[in-house]
């Protein structure tokens, strides 16, 4: 059982550089080739709506931020999905206006900082960072979740004192919004590694189509390796895809800078993921009255990933 191959696979992703494997893979046609199936690509702008689609059975596999994945997992009492691989690490920073004198969290008292989405990875990191020094959003300062595109615009107009955003918005805020990076989130983590994007599969799809998922992971790994080895070509293809799918490509310098701060990886980074989830729980973003650590048991399922890694003689990853 589970050895069947699906003849159509629906994959969700964002037109974002942290979903590079999907974007470059689309450009190379690698997934179609490796899976031998028709691929239905679905594009999203936000994790919650992508997870809604997955919960509704409309997606089989999705590139998504870790927090929406964790949230969907807990809400479905561990039934709906599994994280089957990582996609990207790093690439999130707190950007402030170049003229800002703020250095420490305390300096943001009475100020306004934006995050891209309530309860997403950056929002949680930002609030945790503030909480560490006893600052409470809403009382001591304002944390405003607002769309990335609006953040840039507001930043340009000098209406924000800071923004905790993912790439390429970090670079765009620096370049187009005359900002500077105050804090690179990598500095807060051991080894500078924390998940920015992961790959999830719908549980019943995973059970029924293990062969297909294995082939998908093979392609995903291949793309991960290829991007690492051919960064120039990869960035070109990435930009082409952005232009095609989202209507606009990034300036080469922006792309270069942004890419330099992102690590493309297939490791789901289960350890940091659990830490981030615990923070989200503390902040009240996850279902109340459940033990987060216990509830998250089994969310990362790297059995197939490790099988493929082993076949390619690459180091294995941890599932918890």
């Amino acid at each position, binding site marked *: 059982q589970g050895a069947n191959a699906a003849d159509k696979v629906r994959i969700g992703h964002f037109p974002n550089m942290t979903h590079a494997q999907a974007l470059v893979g689309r450009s190379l046609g690698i997934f179609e080739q490796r899976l031998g199936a028709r691929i239905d690509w679905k594009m999203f702008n936000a994790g919650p709506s992508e997870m809604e689609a997955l919960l509704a059975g409309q997606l089989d596999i999705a590139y998504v931020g870790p927090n929406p994945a964790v949230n969907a997992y807990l*809400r479905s009492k561990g039934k709906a999905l599994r994280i089957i691989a990582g996609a990207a690490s790093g690439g999130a920073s707190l950007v402030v206006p170049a003229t800002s004198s703020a250095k420490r969290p305390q300096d943001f008292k009475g100020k306004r900082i934006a995050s891209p989405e309530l309860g997403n990875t950056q929002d949680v990191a930002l609030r945790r960072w503030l909480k560490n020094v006893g600052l409470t959003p809403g009382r001591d300062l304002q944390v405003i979740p*607002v769309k990335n595109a609006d953040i840039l*615009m507001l930043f340009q107009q000098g209406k924000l004192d800071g923004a905790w955003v993912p790439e390429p918005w970090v670079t765009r805020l620096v370049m187009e919004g005359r900002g500077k990076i105050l804090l690179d989130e990598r500095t807060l983590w051991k080894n500078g590694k924390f998940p920015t994007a992961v790959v999830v599969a719908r549980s019943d799809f995973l059970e029924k189509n293990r062969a297909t998922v294995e082939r998908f992971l093979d392609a995903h790994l291949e793309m991960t390796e290829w991007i690492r080895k051919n960064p120039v070509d990869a960035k070109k293809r990435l930009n082409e895809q952005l232009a095609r799918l989202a209507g606009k490509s990034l300036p080469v310098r922006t792309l270069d800078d942004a890419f330099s701060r992102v690590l493309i990886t297939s490791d789901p980074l289960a350890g940091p993921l659990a830490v981030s989830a615990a923070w989200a729980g503390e902040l009240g973003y996850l279902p109340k009255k459940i033990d987060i650590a216990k509830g998250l048991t089994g969310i990362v399922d790297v059995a197939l990933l490790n099988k493929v890694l082993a076949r390619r003689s690459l180091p294995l990853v941890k599932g918890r």
Partner: protein
Amino acid sequence: MPAEPEIAGKAAGKWRGRVARVLFLLALGILWESLSRAGVWNELIFPAPGAVIRSLADGIGDGSLPRAVGASMVRLGIGYSISLLIGIPAGMLLGRLRLLDDTVGSLAVGLQALPSICWLPLAVLWFGLSESAMQFVIIMGSLMAITLTVRDGVKTIPTLYLRAAPILGATGWRFYRYVLFPASFPSVMTGAKLGWTFAWRSLMAAELLYVTTGIGSTLMMGRELHDMPLVIAAMIAIIVIGLITDRLVFRLGEDFVHRRWGVG
């Protein structure tokens, strides 16, 4: 077969209606709960009423729901009041001054065709992340409806009143103050009601701008956190508030207009 005098029938009809309504809603609730228990659908796709009620109770208990509703109503009240303050005089002028109607009036007709959600990008751009931005969206959503309804009302004021005015000596500003304004009161009520409907819908759009305190934001927060009971609790709160304002505020106004003007 001699029938009973109909007065009993009428009062009874009203009560029968209420009872039917309550029984119907109860039956729906029970059906929903039992289907949920039978596992006909996934909890995630459609939560059970128990979970929704718990979510409602939590929200009311910790004060977050009343706070959200309060914030929304303040926001709505300010935006809507501004719409009324601009829209009613504007509509009266448009109804009386042909040239203004041909120009500004046709602009208003055009803008009325634009759903308020379309103002979101410009709202952030012009007003940043502020209450003003949300009020702007609410105003753009309701102002045209009020203006145009009042304008149409003014245009259809019975010629009789307009002819009675000058022979009673109501000319110049007195005409506006003592004839035109009261004569267009029924259409002002209609416009105010339509404007409220649009303002109410625009509020939900406005609260998409950024996450803030408000009933629309509560709903969107529920969505982002995959908290379906919260989503449905917010929907119920929205329905209840919508019905209450409709029943209390506008029913009273309509009754008054109906009694005094004999129309509407």
